[in-house]
């Protein structure tokens, strides 16, 4: 096991990793940007080093600076978390060169799975089901021909893409040209690469993914599936494990396919194989994420396996002590991503000073966050405030628990999506599991509070302001008494105390 580990990330995932490393007995090293001096990951780590400006390109994305801190602090390994350098082949290579262990797969596996076109080719070679589409990047003319051949609706996707950027759904031929242009321009500005590919759009698709855990001794296991169909702007908002849409048979098959893909690239560590699934449980390979996933906690809750700790242990050369048949799935877990954003204005981020937070607690409730009263939510980073995770014996109980836990949350100073998440938990269609990636778009009524009884809020406002003014009045009184006393003392030639 490593004595010292550098965590090349920020926010809740850095906090999550720091905790795991500490529990494993390692000394933890945090890195931070200007904006993150007072962030929780800095205060929680054993050591912390400043690495530059607030913009990620000046700090968390600068390989040289992170390597320099690792060498200076004597860290033997680096955990990259998610985002930033986590799927950067060059960074993994550089770690290797410097004799630092990159906690993740090999640079080669990152390269193969990082490029979506290469990943698709690999999947094709090992006969993994794929959504029909172009075999790789296409020219404008090719794109249009292929789109007509596979049939509309089609999806245009950036080859280097992720997080929904550079993605366009096209319903008919007339829209194709302008959508292609927009996808390319978005891809160019987001990834510096405007190559795109085209594939058939699966109607009412569900997003189901398999968690992989592989050691460097040839053991590759899966920890079942997660369903992440509730998305806004192609980004996940609610995740659950297991999926309410798949049978035991499909689960087994999907798990086997995911293992096959991981093995094809000699994968080690934790990874996620994403699938798109239609309403008849037909699933197609989407991509593999070669890092820890935001939503990994739901899998931890149902499998009782600490994924982050295993990532560290695997990187240190340990062998997985359990076999596939030993892993059991128990109960139901849900995760809600609490964002500082306004659902009423198309989920516009709401940065600012978070004046006050009170997080829910209780049995089966886990709040993975890095926020505290008085912390600043800056526009430099993702506006995710917390991942609220619950576990219960079945889906219905988990939803009830989540709805109740969300109601315990109090956040003041920035707008949040908590009200929206509560309405989502209460919605009949969600409860029945009738979900797909278009769910939020289909339910705009969930975005606004609707008819809320304002009476308690108004009463609270009146009582609070009354109380605040009384306090202010009495403190003013105190101040003037002290002043008076001071003046008296000065006049009589003495001083106070």
């Amino acid at each position, binding site marked *: 096991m490593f004595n010292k580990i550098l965590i090349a990330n920020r926010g809740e995932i850095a906090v999550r990793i720091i905790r795991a490393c500490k529990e494993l007995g390692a000394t933890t090293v945090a890195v931070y940007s200007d904006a993150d001096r007072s962030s929780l990951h800095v205060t929680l780590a054993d050591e912390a080093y400043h690495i530059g400006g607030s913009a990620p390109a000046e700090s968390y994305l600068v390989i040289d600076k992170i390597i320099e801190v690792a060498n200076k602090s004597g860290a033997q390994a680096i955990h990259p978390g998610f985002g930033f350098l986590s799927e950067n082949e060059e960074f993994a290579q550089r770690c290797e060169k410097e004799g630092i262990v990159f906690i993740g797969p090999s640079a080669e596996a990152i390269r193969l799975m990082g490029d979506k076109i290469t990943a698709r080719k690999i999947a094709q070679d090992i006969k993994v089901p794929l959504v029909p589409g172009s075999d790789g990047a296409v020219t404008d003319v090719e794109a249009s021909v292929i789109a007509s051949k596979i049939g509309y609706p089609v999806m245009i996707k950036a080859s280097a893409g992720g997080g929904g950027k550079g993605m366009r759904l096209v319903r008919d031929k007339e829209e194709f040209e302008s959508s292609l242009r927009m996808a390319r321009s978005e891809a160019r500005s987001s990834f510096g690469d405007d190559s795109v590919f085209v594939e058939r759009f699966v109607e009412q698709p569900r997003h189901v993914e398999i968690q992989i855990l592989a050691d460097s001794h040839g053991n590759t296991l899966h920890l079942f599936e997660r369903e992440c169909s509730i998305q806004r702007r192609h980004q996940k908002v609610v995740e659950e494990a297991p999926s309410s849409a798949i049978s035991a048979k499909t689960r087994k098959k999907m798990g086997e396919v995911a293992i096959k893909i991981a093995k094809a690239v000699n994968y080690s560590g934790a990874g996620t194989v994403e699938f798109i699934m239609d309403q008849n449980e037909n699933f197609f390979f989407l991509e593999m994420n070669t890092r820890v996933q935001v939503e990994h906690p739901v899998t931890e809750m149902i499998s009782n396996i600490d994924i982050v700790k295993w990532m560290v242990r695997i990187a240190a050369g340990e062998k997985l002590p359990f076999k596939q048949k030993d892993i059991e799935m128990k109960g139901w877990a849900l995760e809600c991503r609490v964002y500082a954003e306004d659902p009423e204005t198309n989920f516009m981020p709401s940065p600012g000073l978070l004046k006050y937070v009170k997080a829910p607690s209780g049995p089966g409730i886990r709040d993975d966050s890095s926020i505290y009263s008085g912390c600043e939510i800056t526009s430099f980073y993702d506006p995710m405030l917390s991942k609220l995770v619950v576990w219960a014996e079945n889906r219905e109980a988990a939803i009830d628990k989540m709805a109740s836990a969300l109601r315990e949350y109090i956040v003041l100073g920035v707008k949040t999506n908590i009200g929206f998440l509560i309405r989502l938990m209460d919605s009949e269609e969600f409860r029945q599991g009738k979900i797909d990636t278009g769910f939020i778009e289909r339910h705009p009524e969930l975005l606004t509070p609707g008819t809320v009884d304002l009476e308690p809020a108004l009463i609270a406002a009146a009582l609070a*302001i009354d109380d605040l003014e009384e306090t202010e009045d009495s403190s003013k009184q105190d101040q003037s008494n002290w002043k008076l006393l001071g003046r008296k003392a000065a006049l009589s030639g003495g001083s106070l105390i």
Partner: protein
Amino acid sequence: MTYTFKIKDKVYKIDIEKEKDQTVIQIDEKDIPVEFHKIDDHMYSIILEGKSITIGVLRNGKKLQIFMDGNLFEIEAISERDQRKAPQTLSGVQEIKSPMPSRVVKILKEVGDEVLVDEGVIVVEAMKMESELKSPIEGKVTDLLVNEGDAVEAGTSLLIVSSE
């Protein structure tokens, strides 16, 4: 103490009556006894007819953020105290005058009506724009000098509010 709040352009009035060990809220002409306890600077517990409600409160000047059941409400508050403080130089009898040549669109207060500071009393229209004229003091409407539809000159007295 009476409080006036604005949420998304809607105005609400709430009255707090404090007896020895009992607080009664008057809202919509209903009397509701409440139990109120401050947990910390931003969290309040309210018991309303047996219902226990926890609410987050953040005050920024006259703006209040109220967080309840996952929803954040932005409320603008005008307290009676504010109303008393502001008009100290303005008291007695105030004439509400037309600021420009205009037409009276709507009369919001009749003779005998009570008005608060900054409460709209009359709406006039000039250059296709409606503007609400507000009372600078708290008091009662004693005279109404125009009718709806009247054309008036700049400086014409429209309505008189008296604080006594």
